[in-house]
């Protein structure tokens, strides 16, 4: 017998089959349904982005580790996973070079600079997403679907529009590559739960808290009935990457609490933050910021949720308590779950009510401010006038009837004023007019028309079109200037080429917005002509 017994190590001598690589691989497998659906939904560019992000993340990991003279650990698949998650969080038409920049940020700055796998304090993919969001607002918020720029369902919801819940669940709508299909994501989530890669606590508490918050909000501040409120809440859960975030990114081991109690607290914070950011924040999304903010709280959460050590506080038996000591099990474990659930419930109700109340209280001042803004706009659109006077000899109903007769249905006059000179002579008209056919709902604007039928000014009052697209109507003054000073019967919109006197060049990517505004201006011109008796063009 010639045995070689030189391999010595301390016990234990066997190891479980799970490995870091296996876990990362499982998460990648679990993301496949969502990735494949994303490619099916958005086409080849989505595929390109996924591949580019994964490869560039792995490349940056290898190169940084080489430079830092550390062992290269690309084979553990963690970089590939970061790349995949980042890609799934990008809009389908996102420029490739920006995606590579995002990958570099995720791996080099967020992950390797802090010590590599296990040491990053923020989810690298999400940190990169937020980095891209701040750097490239336009491309990060331009969502195209079927070749048309379209708002995400959450943006529609935020602007008071309606969405189809089934479409949202299945995912055949605009959004980032991986977030649209709740169904595909849930298949992956079930796989991870089944393989015990992730713990149900974080996603369950996260979505649960969010659901309760949004439901309470919808019922109180939103003044919806129970069915609408449930529909609204359901749409909010399916939309905007909540499922993707809750199951795949909030559960990231490195950046979530390691203790089971901590996972519950973390979930509550995530749910509440997402709710606040979505309803009261500037953008329709809230998941990414909620997660990276909560990532920062993780060390604190962990220190207050240290598990109770086995046998801690156990007391020696003595004869005196000899009787009642059989099977004195610690019942605390079971009780505490109920308490936590109750606490979550109470926190959600209170925060929901609180936010609802804040909404109610601030509603009146907000309305007042809007009125002041309207009045200020009279001056903007008809600067030559000395004063303005509400027209009361014509009823608004007649005016709006006339607008639809003229073929400009969709536009509706809210206010109509005379623009008067110092001697109270009528110089023209100021219209506060709303077109309901904007891309994200109503666009309210002020239009000034003088007695000749010349447009004296155009100013957007209430507009919530897509940032970087339809919103240019307000943000880019040159758009309004196309109308000002022109004396035409009506304007028409063209998409490209040289414009003639009566032609308006559509805002790139926002034809619908341009049409809506032009429709309203034409309606104003029509009414102005009607009021002055058609003298202007004869």
């Amino acid at each position, binding site marked *: 017998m010639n045995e070689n017994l030189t*391999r010595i190590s301390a016990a234990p*001598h066997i190891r479980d089959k799970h*490995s870091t690589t296996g876990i990362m691989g499982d998460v990648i497998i679990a993301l496949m349904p969502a990735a494949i659906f994303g490619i099916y939904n958005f086409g080849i560019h989505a595929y390109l982005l996924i591949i580019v992000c994964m490869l560039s993340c792995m490349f940056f990991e290898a190169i940084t580790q080489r430079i830092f003279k550390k062992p290269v650990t690309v084979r553990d698949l963690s970089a590939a996973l970061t790349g995949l998650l980042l890609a799934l969080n990008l809009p389908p038409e996102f420029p490739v070079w920006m995606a590579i920049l995002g990958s570099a940020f995720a791996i080099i700055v967020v992950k390797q600079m802090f010590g590599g*796998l296990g040491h990053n304090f923020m989810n690298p993919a999400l940190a990169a997403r937020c980095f891209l969001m701040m750097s490239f607002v336009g491309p990060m918020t331009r969502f195209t679907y079927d070749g048309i720029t379209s708002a995400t369902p959450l943006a529609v919801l935020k602007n008071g529009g309606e969405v189809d819940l089934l479409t949202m669940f299945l995912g055949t709508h605009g959004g980032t590559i991986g977030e649209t299909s709740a169904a595909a994501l849930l298949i992956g989530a079930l796989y991870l739960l089944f393989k015990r890669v992730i713990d149900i606590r974080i996603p369950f508490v996260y979505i649960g808290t969010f659901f309760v918050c949004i439901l309470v909000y919808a019922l109180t501040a939103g003044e919806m009935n129970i069915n609408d409120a449930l529909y609204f809440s359901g749409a909010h859960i399916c939309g905007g990457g909540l499922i993707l975030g809750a199951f795949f990114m909030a559960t990231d081991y490195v950046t979530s609490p390691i203790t089971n109690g901590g996972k519950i607290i973390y979930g509550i914070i995530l749910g509440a933050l997402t709710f606040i950011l979505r309803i009261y924040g500037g953008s329709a999304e809230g998941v990414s910021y909620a997660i990276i903010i909560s990532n920062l709280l993780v060390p604190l959460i962990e220190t207050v949720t240290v*598990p*109770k050590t*086995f046998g801690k506080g156990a007391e020696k*038996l003595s004869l005196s308590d000899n009787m009642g000591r059989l099977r004195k099990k610690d019942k605390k474990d079971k009780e505490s779950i109920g308490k936590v659930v109750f606490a979550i419930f109470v926190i959600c109700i209170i925060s929901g009510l609180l936010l609802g109340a804040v909404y109610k209280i601030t509603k009146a001042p907000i309305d007042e401010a809007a009125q002041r803004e309207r009045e200020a706009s009279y001056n903007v659109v008809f600067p030559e006038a000395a004063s303005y006077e509400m027209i009361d000899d014509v009823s608004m109903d007649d005016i709006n009837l006339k607008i639809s007769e003229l073929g400009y249905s969709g536009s509706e006059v809210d206010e109509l004023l005379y623009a008067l000179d110092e001697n109270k002579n009528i110089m023209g008209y100021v219209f506060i007019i709303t077109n309901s056919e904007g891309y994200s709902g109503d666009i309210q604007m002020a239009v000034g028309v003088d007695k000749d039928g010349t447009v004296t000014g155009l100013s957007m009052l209430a507009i919530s079109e897509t940032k970087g697209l339809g919103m240019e109507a307000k943000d880019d003054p040159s758009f309004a200037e196309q109308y000002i000073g022109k004396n035409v019967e009506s304007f028409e919109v063209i998409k490209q080429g040289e414009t003639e006197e009566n032609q308006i060049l559509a805002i790139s990517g926002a034809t619908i917005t341009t049409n809506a505004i032009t429709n309203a201006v034409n309606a104003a011109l029509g009414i102005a002509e009607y009021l002055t008796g058609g003298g202007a063009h004869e």
Partner: protein
Amino acid sequence: MAIFTFKGGVHPDDGKKLTMNKEIEEYIPKGDMVYPLNQHIGAPAVPVVKRGDRVLVGEKIAEAGGFISANIHSSVSGKVIAIEPRLTVNGNKVESIVIENDNLYEEIDYSLNTKPLEEMYREDVIEVIKEAGIVGMGGAGFPTHVKLSPKNEQDIDTIIVNGAECEPYLTSDYRRMIEEPEKIIVGLKIIINLFENARGIIAVEDNKPKAIKKLREMLKNEENITLNVMKTKYPQGAERQLIYANTGRYINSKMLPADAGCIVQNVDTVISIYEAVIMGRPLISRVVTVSGDCIQEPKNYIVRIGTNMRELVEASGGFSVDPGKTIAGGPMMGKALYSLEVPVTKGTSALIAFKNDEVSENEIGNCIKCGRCINTCPSHVMPYKLMNLAYAGKMEEFVKNDGMECCECGCCSYICPAKRPLTQTIASARKSILAKGKK
């Protein structure tokens, strides 16, 4: 029926099918026998023989060296050829008595060691057990007569026979439960009768249906002994977890089982008690499982204490290939061997040889904070944190974070997906803290 268990633990591949249907065979040693003087916790035994003496089977060759210590008996007849340091399973050399086996197996008269049970008082029984050199045979080797003499004798209400055998590959207790259940039951009764208020529990994991069936049948008419079927999970047989699973009582590292009114005995130990009290036979043999994928014919042996490990491997047909790792004891808590020239001692439950060494094959990675170590830790401490503190040398914080509550079961190292040596690091930190405390 309630399933008895605890929170945490792991489910390693148990490998028991290799030997669970192999009857216990007696192995007759051929070579020299080596008896290390510290086969137990406490003071080493003191030799009572000298070089050149001839001894018989069952003759006392070393005497307890203190209150916590145990006698050692010869398991063969032959001549004492040396009293010198010899290599043991721990990897160090320990003062040992070496006996040349004359293969005659001449026995002393065992009947002189004991009396009929009816004629014995409590003190007599404990004296017999002490004389027989019985120690805990699960591995720790705590002298049994000390365990059976707690200060709070009146408080002891539960005697648990630990038949969990949660360590993978081990089948020695299982075979004993199937082959000699009557000895276990009588042995347990002897212990119960030492305490006024005690009842008995035989605790078995539910992966041993044959043993459960047999014991249940035999315990049908026993009012004072219950059979508890526990969930199969490592470390179900760890003392603190076993007590919790069967009684709902917690004990921590500063307490003894007796503080929770319990005394826990290993199956083999109970049988040794039976043999000592009823038959007058001292502890000179034990059951050893020789198993693992590298052993040609895995088997269960009844082995005389002091037998060379190499003989057991040869009896089992030798290694199939060069072993990747050889372990004395179970794969979770056993000791890796670098030589087979070590004797079987009172605490040796198994000899396992694997073709592959799962430890050196796996690269150690960064902690990804997956939390598996926390969820599996039967002591409910935070292994990843303790390991970081141990690495950083922050021993005060290590203690503050309940590092001393670790029972070194190995679950955290087993489960860690990054293959980090959690148990090992924590265990060495504990050792250095304990060593400092003793100074």
